[in-house]
């Protein structure tokens, strides 16, 4: 039987996170991060996961104010979490466009040392000029170069990680030899994106390289993952879509001389637990409507219609107007809008769905966006997760709790023991590094 991999996503800037819940705590105080990370470690999860966005989202020219807004710096919070955990992998999303490889490689190598081998990097490729306005170079990258830059960025970072051998430091007081290899750290790299040379100044970390995750769904993104990533973070959450995606990315591996187990498929997954399935369903319905307020539903439609719909009643029927195609995007700084590349077709589908099920605007948005992946009693959820993994819809999940920071606690207490009983999830860590937890080679 396949072993399941589990990770904990810190709930953040998205409308999954229910900030209005009385249980919802701070999304920025360090104690919240400590809480989630310790829960994940208690449950023997593979890793803790942080998403990232480098500009506040905007909607119709104004900062989007309905979801949680604000997050800490990825590297800094992960390094601090290394102080309050021992085994849990610490993975962060770091963009390959708005950074330079020398600095990012230094930060990941440092994090790997400071966590004694637990660093992981989710490489993302957002490129837009909107986000670029926060950075020195401004305007940034043509979209079609985003994966070229990501590839070259990662390749360069690998060269830097590999520029030190594991034994390059002797630190021999008696002979006075600190450095066994005088060339340690030397590098030279020239390509279409980077023209750099010198000496990398962080010695090789315990894992050699951090674990690499990829998130991005285009054909190019999948090729990039097949070529270089250790795991792929995806949104394909249903059994059928998951199986299709799983087969697709694993099929791409042989072209790069890699085997199926070398690229793990880890979809994002949400969950709602109850004592019984019926109770969980009821609770899930409450959560969905907490996630999608009337205002949120209207803004969600505006992203796809790309026009002002503020005059519509969220409890009423879908707008009769057609989406504005080709106009400047209403929503900025959102990866999500990329899921609806053909708004006219999307609107047509949604109208049919609303008609068939007699859905208001808010009901429709709940239906198409707020759906929990796993809803049920702990037994039902454990069974479903195991089925997804055994039937090759995934190799595990990155769980996104909807409440900060205690949302994972019931999962850790009730579902994990059932997975352990079934022998499909570890009872304890057998290694100390993230690579060891994931079973991927150094």
């Amino acid at each position, binding site marked *: 039987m396949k072993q399941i991999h589990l990770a904990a996503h810190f709930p953040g800037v998205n409308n999954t996170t229910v*900030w*209005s819940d009385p249980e919802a705590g701070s999304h*920025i105080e*360090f104690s919240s991060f*400590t809480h989630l990370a310790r829960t994940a470690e208690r449950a023997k999860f593979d890793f803790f996961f942080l998403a990232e966005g*480098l*500009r*506040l989202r905007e909607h119709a020219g*104004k900062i989007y*104010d*309905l979801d*949680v*807004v*604000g997050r*800490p*710096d990825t*590297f*800094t*919070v992960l*390094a*601090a979490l*290394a*102080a*309050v955990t021992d085994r849990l992998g610490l993975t962060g999303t770091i963009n390959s466009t*708005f*950074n*330079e490889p*020398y*600095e990012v490689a*230094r930060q990941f190598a*440092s994090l790997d*040392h*400071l*966590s*004694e081998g637990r660093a992981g990097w989710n490489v993302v490729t957002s490129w837009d000029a909107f986000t670029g*306005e*926060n*950075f*020195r*170079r*401004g305007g940034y990258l043509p979209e079609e170069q985003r994966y070229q830059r990501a590839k070259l960025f990662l390749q360069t970072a690998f060269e830097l990680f590999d520029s030190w051998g594991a034994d390059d*430091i002797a*630190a021999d*007081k008696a002979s*006075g*030899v*600190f*450095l066994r290899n*005088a060339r340690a*750290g030397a590098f030279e790299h020239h390509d279409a994106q*980077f023209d*750099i*040379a*010198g*000496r990398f*100044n*962080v*010695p090789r970390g315990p894992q050699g390289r951090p674990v690499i995750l990829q998130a991005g769904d285009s054909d190019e993104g999948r090729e990039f993952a097949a070529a270089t990533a250790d795991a792929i973070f995806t949104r394909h959450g249903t059994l059928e879509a998951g199986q299709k995606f799983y087969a697709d990315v694993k099929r791409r591996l042989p072209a790069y001389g890699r085997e199926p187990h070398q690229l793990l498929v880890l979809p994002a997954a949400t969950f709602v637990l109850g004592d019984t399935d019926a109770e969980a369903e009821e609770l899930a319905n409450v959560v969905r409507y907490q996630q999608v307020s*009337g*205002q949120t539903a209207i803004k969600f439609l505006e992203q796809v219609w790309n026009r002002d719909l503020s005059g519509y009643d969220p409890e009423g029927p879908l707008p009769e107007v057609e989406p504005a195609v080709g106009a400047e995007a209403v929503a900025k700084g959102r990866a999500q809008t990329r899921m609806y590349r053909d708004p006219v077709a999307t609107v047509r589908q949604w109208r049919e769905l609303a008609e068939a099920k007699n859905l208001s605007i808010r009901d429709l948005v709940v239906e198409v966006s707020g759906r929990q992946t796993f809803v049920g009693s702990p037994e039902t959820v454990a069974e479903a997760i195991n089925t997804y993994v055994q039937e090759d819809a995934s190799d595990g999940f990155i769980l996104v709790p909807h409440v900060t920071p205690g949302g994972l606690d019931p999962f850790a207490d009730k579902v994990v023991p059932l997975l352990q009983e079934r022998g499909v999830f570890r009872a304890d860590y057998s290694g100390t590094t993230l690579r060891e937890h994931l079973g991927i080679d150094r």
Partner: protein
Amino acid sequence: MVHLAVALEGAGWHPAAWREPDARPDELFRPRYWADLVLEAEHGLLDFVTIEDSLGAPRDGRTDRVDGRLDAVLIAARVAPLTRHIGFLPTAIATHTEPFHLSKAIATLDYVSTGRGGVRVRIASSADDAAHFGRREFPVPLPDLAEEAGDWVEVVRRLWDSWEDDAEIRDTATGRFIDRDKLHYIDFTGRFFSVKGPSITPRPPQGQPPVAVLSHVTEIHRLAARSADLVFLTPQDTDEARALGQEVRGLRADLLVFGDVVVFLDETEQAARDRKARLDDLAEFTSDALVFTGTPAQLADQLLAWRDAGLSGFRLRPGALPHDLSAITRGLVPELQQRGAFRREYEATTLRGLLGLERPANRYAGATR
């Protein structure tokens, strides 16, 4: 009362320090090593530690020196949750980094240390460092680098203020998580870069974490006066301490002025001299700052003379670690306490509090976006 800080660098500031019997050169890249040092500094009630950093590496092919370092901001973040009182001023290099990234990194350091973060800003003038980024022609004249660093700090500071303290409202009635009128675009445009804002990270606990600059020349004194809360100076004697202090305070009256001193401390002056001579035999050591060898009591005399000449505090650079750090915390500190010149317990919970700095008002408060 004086302020006391230590500057942490590898195995100590002397290039042969790593060969001392109590040195731990094989642990320089492990978190335990850094935690032990900072906990020792906190045991001595010091105001803060600085952590040296550089985006470059010497390319002289030597193999007898400590080589390699970890990112200073990450070291600070890794150790901060293990401590309760001491402040952290890791080094950040303004020349090649993004102020947007560093602003949120230091804000986050402030969150993970619950109000004890800060930053020491450095310029990188070498062509070797620039080659690691490959985007710019070097050398660049110092005044330009200083102006760029000043802009960098300006952006970092505006981003810290880009959220008002009470911007998060969680108003269920209107469904709004934040009051967006309390978030501000910083719209910085300068000679070297422009940045839009606001930050992605809310205003840090201290509002403005303290910023420090080490300065040897007038251009950098000016940068300190424009940008910093603290300046580290390197006087060689009391007269120079007085003159330098007056010079920078003439540029800005409320700047905290620290004297940097490299220290080799032992129970007798002879022992300190002998130890330094032994290290000098293994490797040549030169320094921009005064190199002091002697007893903690002698150092106390010197520091108090400099205080009387107008300095607010001292950043001591331990010649060898952990020896000279423990001599500071267990020798110098009690000596200063006996003379009524140093705290007997931590009197504040934030770094600004320890330094006697008020929590600043937000520059954007009350303004409309």
